[in-house]
């Protein structure tokens, strides 16, 4: 199979955005990867190896081979990401590629890994498509998705804001935005909310005033921002500027919801994030053993707590190493088989299942809210609710995920 490790070491490829708007997120992912490698090779305090329910990893690398890694820059562009992944596969002999912080890139690289015959462990990718219509036999996602955000948020929103609400959606005009909007609208409509409008905003937009202004008189009393990254920071800032937070509509307080949160972006949004509800894959303030162990080893090494992107990347690396060890083979097909249907715990998200049908992890989802009185620059979100996995689980043939086939695993040459 492709890049079968023959020497005393095995090479992993960490493909993250190092330039462009998501560079900070990429840098955090890279830190997590370096930490994971350190732990796999027996360095540091062992981190999550100590709390992971599977105990086959013993700090001697993977199958006795020392873990080495190469890094690359996706630039958050499909082409560049594929080029970078190609060089890892062709030049550096990487046996697994992981990383990324947007769905477009994840889907593109996943496709490449499928063709080249290596395993792809997705980083931060939230689109339903990654494990829906674009799923691939060689690709695996630990991160949650748009549907799960909707399913987790809906009950909390009902509890906080009632079930008689009129929602106005602003949606980034590309596939991730659409799938998330679809998921959230479906989940909230099921509560009895009305979706008064859904406006698509260009990716390149920086000033959202002309999209926010119409909200004022639309009769809506909730604004849902299906934006991520810089778009989210700007649209949220603009919404707050227009006084939406202080507004009363239909006798209720106007509310803003940001379905996908990340702490890094919350930091970019500053004061504006306070009191705003959203969902996240993981947060450092979780108090389970796994989370505490991860925060401790990451925080000790780097001086600040890890982001959810860092968490998912770290966990993915360990899961891969674990699967190889359990399969006792680097052959992608054996690894995939070991990952499929794998149930584990102790990684910070509670008991988790890597579902065989679509290679999606099912685990608890956090609903969080911007903290009113943060004690430090990292303490921006507070956990409102930990939605149990069962509540966000959907059947593999759910219409929002339909249209793709895993195909068969490709071990390459």
């Amino acid at each position: 199979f492709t890049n079968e490790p023959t020497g005393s070491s095995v090479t992993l490829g960490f493909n993250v955005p190092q330039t462009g708007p998501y560079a900070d997120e990429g840098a955090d992912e890279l830190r997590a990867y370096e930490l994971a490698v350190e732990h796999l090779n027996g360095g540091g305090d062992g981190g999550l190896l100590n709390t992971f329910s599977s105990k086959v990893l013993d700090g001697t690398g993977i199958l006795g081979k020392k873990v080495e890694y190469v890094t690359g820059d996706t630039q958050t562009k499909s082409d560049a990401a594929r080029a970078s992944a190609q060089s890892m596969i062709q030049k550096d002999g990487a046996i697994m590629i992981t990383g990324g912080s947007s769905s477009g890139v994840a889907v593109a690289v996943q496709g490449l890994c499928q063709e080249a015959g290596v395993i792809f462990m997705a980083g931060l990718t939230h689109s339903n498509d990654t494990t829906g219509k674009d799923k691939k036999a060689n690709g695996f996602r630990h991160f949650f998705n748009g549907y799960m955000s909707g399913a987790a948020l809906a009950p909390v929103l009902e509890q906080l804001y009632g079930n008689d609400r009129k929602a106005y959606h602003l949606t980034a005009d590309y596939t991730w935005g659409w799938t998330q909007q679809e998921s959230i609208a479906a989940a909230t409509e099921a509560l009895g909310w009305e979706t008064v409008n859904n406006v698509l905003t260009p990716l390149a937009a920086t000033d959202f005033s002309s999209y926010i202004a119409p909200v004022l008189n639309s009769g809506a009393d909730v604004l849902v921002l299906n934006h991520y990254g810089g778009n989210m920071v700007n649209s949220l800032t603009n919404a707050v500027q227009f006084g939406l937070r202080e507004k009363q509509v239909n006798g209720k307080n106007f509310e803003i919801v940001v379905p996908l949160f990340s702490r890094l972006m919350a930091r970019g949004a500053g004061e504006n994030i306070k009191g705003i509800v959203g969902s996240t894959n993981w947060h450092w303030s979780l108090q389970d053993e796994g989370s505490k162990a991860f925060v401790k080893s990451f925080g000790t090494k780097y001086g600040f707590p890890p982001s959810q992107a860092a968490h998912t990347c770290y966990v993915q690396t360990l899961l891969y190493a674990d699967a190889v060890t359990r399969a006792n083979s680097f052959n992608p097909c054996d690894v995939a088989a070991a990952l499929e249907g794998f149930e584990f715990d102790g990684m910070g998200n509670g008991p988790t299942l890597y579902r065989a049908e679509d290679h999606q992890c099912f685990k608890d989802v956090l609903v969080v809210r911007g903290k009113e009185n943060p004690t430090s620059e990292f303490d921006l979100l507070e956990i409102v609710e930990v939605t149990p996995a069962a509540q966000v689980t959907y059947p593999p043939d759910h219409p929002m995920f339909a249209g793709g086939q895993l195909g068969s695993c490709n071990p390459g040459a």
Partner: protein
Amino acid sequence: MFGLEKKDSLLLLIVAILTMCAPFILNPFPTDSGLAQFNAGYPDLMQRFVIFGIFAIGFNILFGLTGYLSFGHAAFLGVGSYSAVWMFKLLSMNIIPAIVLSVIIAGLFALVIGYVSLRRTGIYFSILTLAFAQMSFALAYSVLTPITNGETGLQLTLSDPRVLGVSATEDGSIPVTNLFGAEMRSAMDVAMGPWTFTFSVGYYVCAVAMLLAFYLSIRIFRSPFGMMLRAIKSNQTRMNYTGLNPRPYTLAAFVISGMYAGLAGGLMAAMDPLAGAERMQWTASGEVVLMTILGGAGTLIGPVLGAGLIKYFENIFSKINDNVLHGWFAFMPDGIEDFMVTLVHPFVGKGWHLTLGIMFMLVVIFLPGGLVEGGQRIGRMIRGRKARDAKSTATKPAE
């Protein structure tokens, strides 16, 4: 040779030898030495070198000869890629029909955009082409998603109809692009002592395409048509009063360079069957402009060099992380090692943009004619003083 003057034949020959031996030349360092990091001789990057070389050669036919600076050439590359991928999806995995279609479609696209944009000159022309390309990009990214698959890019799937082929291979995966059976992805590793060289079918297909493209561009440069284009750049008024209509010439140049871009796009899709909207964004158009100027606009070989250099930086420098740096400087005492790493760190890995920016500035400040001028200066230095007294005032036309 091939109807070329001696100097041009020599150039073509050198380029041919270089491209054919690229797997050796680009892998100068033994595989497990520290410097192996700088090797670029793996199929994907070599393919990129020649594909972007084709793109830049074509761009240079327009820009270098007529001086019309198109800021939307990436649109043609993107259109070419989309056409090729659709051909793979619908017709067959053979790359010939895909590439033919991408050249044709890109040419048609260029004809329409060029016809409209060439009504203006100078910066007004540049902005018109930019506007068309940005519109194509924006639409491809969102509204046209059914055709382009938007953000993710158009990919092959297991359910493609593919009338002259199979939707999926027996083992359940997507078939591979090929040239009458020779798979683009297949490659052969040859180990020679500490070196490993990779020969890939895809690369050689691209290399042959580039040589043909390069040969054609030499012919165009040296042809009456090429001279007309330079005349247009020099003085349109005289052109008009000499009984020549500049418009069809510029349009022809525009379409030809659009077709080159289409060829590059088609090849790109043939090597890696994915077509993304980003390929049409202004940054992509800007990149080919930078490649051409960096190498030397209006010179034959310059654009290829420029393309190679930028792609090399993008793919090699971005991969040098602190870990690698520590590896390099490991032989030094600890303190100095850390110091060296700190010193180099901002320029590599995630700082590769910085190095690229500095290099742009240095080249344009010290080598006004681009990399080609650098080569000429070195050549002159080697040939040395003996030629000095034999100098003539006649200025040679551009290489």
